[in-house]
């Protein structure tokens, strides 16, 4: 398989704390990569660097041939990299449908001052993204009124509505009951597979990793200490020990 | 989208309510003698300028009361309608329009601030409503524009500040090094030019060593006072007024500024009462006109004496000159109506006739003669003197007074004022009355 994203020699530090220490990692096209590691091992930092929220001190991330480290999140988004957040980032005062409409409009041509956002073509796309995750029922609810699980789904649906080539998901099931988590993951992963979107997800729950990841990268103190098939990695006792503290 | 139209509906209700609430309340029967004569009076009753505007409002109250007590104008009672100028120029213009069109006020005494006078004059012209400026003194008011309905019942900055310079020159004061500290707006800048140009006309060696224009309403003048002290000017000129003047004088007094330099505190008489005997001695002071409550002309005028007595009884203050300016403006309105009635055989004048009656009107005001010239500007005398404490008075009096006749210190109609100053005849100073020639 072809590499789609390549991190080379990444280094990030906050004050004295090293959050990424010479990270080299490749994401392959069409794979589902899980990132695991204990709290503070640098997983979210990696996502933040790849999506432009944090600038690395050294090193570079390439998306195809494009270097990402100097780009704004919005520029990276327009290249085809979308992101879902650990804490859902929604427009709280808008309805779910309006949230999705904004995402659809953002992809198709946002800067049209006099064309209504509720145009059929945007509506269709927004509904489609909602449908992928089974959210049709709450389309007219205000985002602020949703349950945490639904907020997570809407957050992911917005990322999906951008029709990215690569999607980062930061702990899609954290803060959600384990019953709900399975339902969410089943819906999300199914939708991603159908849409053919390369996915990187940060995950605490090894069960989820075992079920959905094609490949796993293990983080420790800002480094990738191991990567490979979920089976091999998750059975390595040393690695299990190092990530034991996280679950 | 339902809620939008409901909102719009409720807003429409609000709009309708407002709009009809504002509709004029009465129809206007023109021509005949009204039941009462409303007079618009524009002054500051709030904000920093209220320290000038309020005495004027008080004066207007007294004057209208005494006019009504004397039977009003040919039996018509007068009623002042006050407008606060502190609402801002747009509101002042709006009120002017409202008074004219909705409340049928046929004549206005407006305004205190020069900005408001300049803004209201074209409106008065447009609405064909006689307007009598009572305190604003920018000489730009009548300089380029000719008005049919706008008159000024007091003088402009030119005679006012030529008078102070002339007084210094006549007294042969040392004017080689002059320091100026004026408020930072037209009044201050204009006065500085007029004062220093007049000095330079007769003493070309007179130099401006320091020129400061602190912002209006500065709470502290410490730095400015230090600079004045360091520059050692022989003369310090200021036309601060109101709270600014009090602050400046209070802060400068302990720092001996006024013993180091001869001070010209143009509006000093307005704070005599506040400072009492602490007011700097020997400072050149005046009243921007002839509105000095203790001048021989005022003492000889029983109406003025009554006014002062009533004012002190009611407001527990002496009437400072803005009070006289307002009182005199009310007298101008009265005189104009009386003249119009006389010239129209007792028929009540419309605004056109009233405006014609104001042309060239001569009024014997509380403080002296006033003429409305051909350019509609007022012509009055200028009283200047020095501050002096005398036994038996809790606050200083004006001593060494001079009363410059208006026509001697005012440029002729249509003359460019600065050019006029620059070409004053060499014997000009000798032709003026001498300091100390007026009053005891």
């Amino acid at each position, binding site marked *: 398989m072809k590499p789609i994203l390549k991190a080379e020699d990444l280094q990030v530090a906050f004050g004295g704390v090293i959050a990424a220490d010479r990270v080299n990692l490749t994401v392959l096209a069409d794979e589902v990569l899980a990132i695991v590691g204990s709290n503070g091992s640098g997983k979210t930092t990696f996502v933040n660097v790849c999506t432009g929220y944090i600038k690395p001190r050294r090193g570079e991330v390439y998306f195809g041939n494009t270097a990402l480290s100097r780009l704004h999140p*919005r520029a990276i*988004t327009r290249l085809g990299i979308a*992101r879902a957040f650990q804490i859902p980032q929604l427009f709280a005062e808008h309805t779910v449908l309006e949230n999705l409409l904004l995402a659809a409009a953002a992809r198709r041509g946002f800067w049209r001052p006099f064309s209504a956002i509720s145009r059929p073509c945007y509506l269709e796309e927004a509904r489609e993204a909602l449908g992928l995750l089974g959210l049709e029922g709450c389309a007219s609810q205000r985002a602020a009124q949703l349950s945490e699980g639904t907020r997570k789904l809407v957050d992911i649906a917005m990322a999906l509505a*951008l029709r990215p080539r690569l999607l980062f998901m930061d702990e899609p099931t954290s803060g959600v009951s384990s019953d709900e988590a399975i339902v969410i993951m089943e819906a999300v992963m199914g939708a991603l597979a159908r849409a053919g979107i390369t996915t990187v997800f940060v995950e605490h729950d090894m069960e989820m990793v075992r079920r959905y990841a094609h490949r796993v990268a293990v983080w420790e103190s800002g480094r990738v200490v191991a990567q490979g098939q979920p089976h091999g990695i998750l059975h390595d006792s040393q690695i299990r020990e190092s990530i034991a503290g996280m679950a | 989208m339902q809620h939008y139209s409901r909102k*719009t509906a409720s807003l429409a209700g*609000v709009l309708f309510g*407002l709009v009809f609430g504002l509709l004029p309340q009465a129809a206007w029967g023109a021509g005949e003698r009204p039941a009462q004569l409303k007079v618009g009076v524009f002054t500051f009753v709030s904000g920093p300028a209220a320290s000038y505007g309020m005495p004027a409002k008080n004066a207007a109250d007294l004057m209208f009361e005494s006019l009504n007590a004397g039977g009003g104008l040919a039996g018509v009672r007068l009623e002042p309608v006050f407008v*606060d100028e502190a609402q801002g120029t747009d509101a002042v213009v709006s009120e002017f329009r409202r008074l004219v069109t909705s409340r049928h006020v046929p004549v206005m005494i407006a305004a205190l601030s020069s*900005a408001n006078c300049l803004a209201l004059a*074209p409106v008065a012209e447009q609405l064909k409503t006689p307007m009598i400026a009572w305190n604003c003194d920018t000489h730009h008011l009548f300089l380029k524009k000719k008005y049919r309905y706008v008159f000024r019942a007091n003088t402009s900055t030119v005679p006012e500040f030529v008078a102070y310079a002339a007084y210094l020159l006549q007294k042969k004061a040392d004017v080689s090094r002059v320091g100026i500290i004026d408020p930072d707006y037209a009044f201050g800048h204009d006065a500085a030019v007029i004062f220093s140009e007049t000095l330079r006309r007769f003493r070309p060696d007179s130099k401006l060593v320091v020129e400061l224009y602190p912002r209006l309403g500065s709470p502290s003048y410490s730095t400015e006072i230090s600079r004045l002290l360091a520059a050692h000017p022989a003369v310090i000129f200021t036309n601060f007024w109101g709270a600014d003047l009090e602050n400046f004088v209070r802060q400068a007094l302990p720092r001996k500024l006024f013993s180091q330099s001869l001070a010209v505190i143009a509006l000093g008489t307005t704070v005599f009462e506040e400072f009492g005997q602490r007011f700097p001695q020997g400072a050149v002071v005046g009243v921007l006109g002839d509105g000095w409550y203790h001048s021989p002309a005022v003492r000889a005028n029983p109406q003025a004496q009554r006014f002062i007595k009533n004012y002190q009884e009611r407001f527990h203050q002496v009437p400072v000159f803005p009070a006289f300016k307002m009182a005199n403006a009310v007298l101008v309105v009265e005189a104009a109506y009386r003249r119009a009635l006389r010239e129209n055989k007792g028929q009540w004048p419309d605004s056109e006739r009233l405006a014609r009656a104001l042309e060239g009107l001569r009024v014997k005001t509380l403080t002296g003669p006033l003429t409305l010239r051909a350019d509609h500007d007022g012509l009055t005398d200028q009283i200047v003197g020095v501050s002096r404490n005398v036994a038996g008075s809790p606050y200083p009096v004006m001593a060494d007074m001079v009363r410059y006749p208006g026509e001697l210190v005012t440029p002729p109609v249509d003359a460019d004022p600065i050019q006029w100053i620059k070409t004053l005849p060499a014997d000009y100073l000798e032709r003026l009355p001498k300091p100390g020639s007026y009053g005891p």
Partner: protein
Amino acid sequence: MKGPRALLWVCLAAAAVAVALASPWASFILTVALAKGLAALGVALLLRAGLMSLGHALFYAAGGYGAAYLARWLGVTDLLLLLGAGFLSATVLGLFTGAVLVRYRAIFFAMLNLAASMVFFSLVTKLYNLTGGSDGMPLPVPTMFGLKPGQGLFYLTLACVFVCAGGLRRYLDSAMGQGLGAIATNEIRLEYLGISVNGLLFVNYAISAGLGGLGGALAAIAIGHVTPELFFWTTSAQLLLGAALGGAGSVAGPFAGMLLLEGVRTAASQYAPLLWEMAMGLCALAVALFVPQGLSGIVDLPQQWKRAVQ
């Protein structure tokens, strides 16, 4: 739902015209209030994005001064040209200040706008020879294609209000308009949708500056005079007050807010001339404490009360 709304606007216009015909003063005060409403509409636009400008008097004043300078330098008296000059000068100024200020949020945005307007206030007052200082500058009685328009200014203002309100209504329904509200709730998500938040704010800042300039020019022409007071922060506070009174929720809000303010001020100066400030203050307090959504929230009140009772 388009029908009833359009009908209401037509009724409003008819009411305004009727009042203006009944009393020339009413047409004047309506002109000024609606002109201020345009500026308040600009302020409300930024309020939607959660940004509070304490310096929008800058653009209101720039509109007035722009028109005054055109008249002073080139002797222009044509109403449309004067308006254009006011609108353009404010918009250009808005483009410059906006380019810098849209990077700031919350109280910093408010403060920087305030600082910008106060710097201009100081300079306009100070540069006496250039600006007329605190005495200000006159504007000519305007002409329209060589004719004296009389009531024309009022109708033109009304037309401006309708064009701007209608345009803005459509704009607010667009993605850009909806994006404004999104800025208030979540900028980060907007960036991660590929939208430049600062770019969007910049566009809106320019629009709001333009609206301010248009309103300022209309008011200045109606009043016939401009003074530095227009730049002072209390003018900004008044515009903000009008916008907040009306509520940022509908485009009619700022106009209603400004009309209410002018109405209160006028009524106060008629019945209690010494207490107009207090009347306006009470008005502000009442709305802030009891009608948090502004006038456009009044319709929701009975429901809220019902809920409170239950």
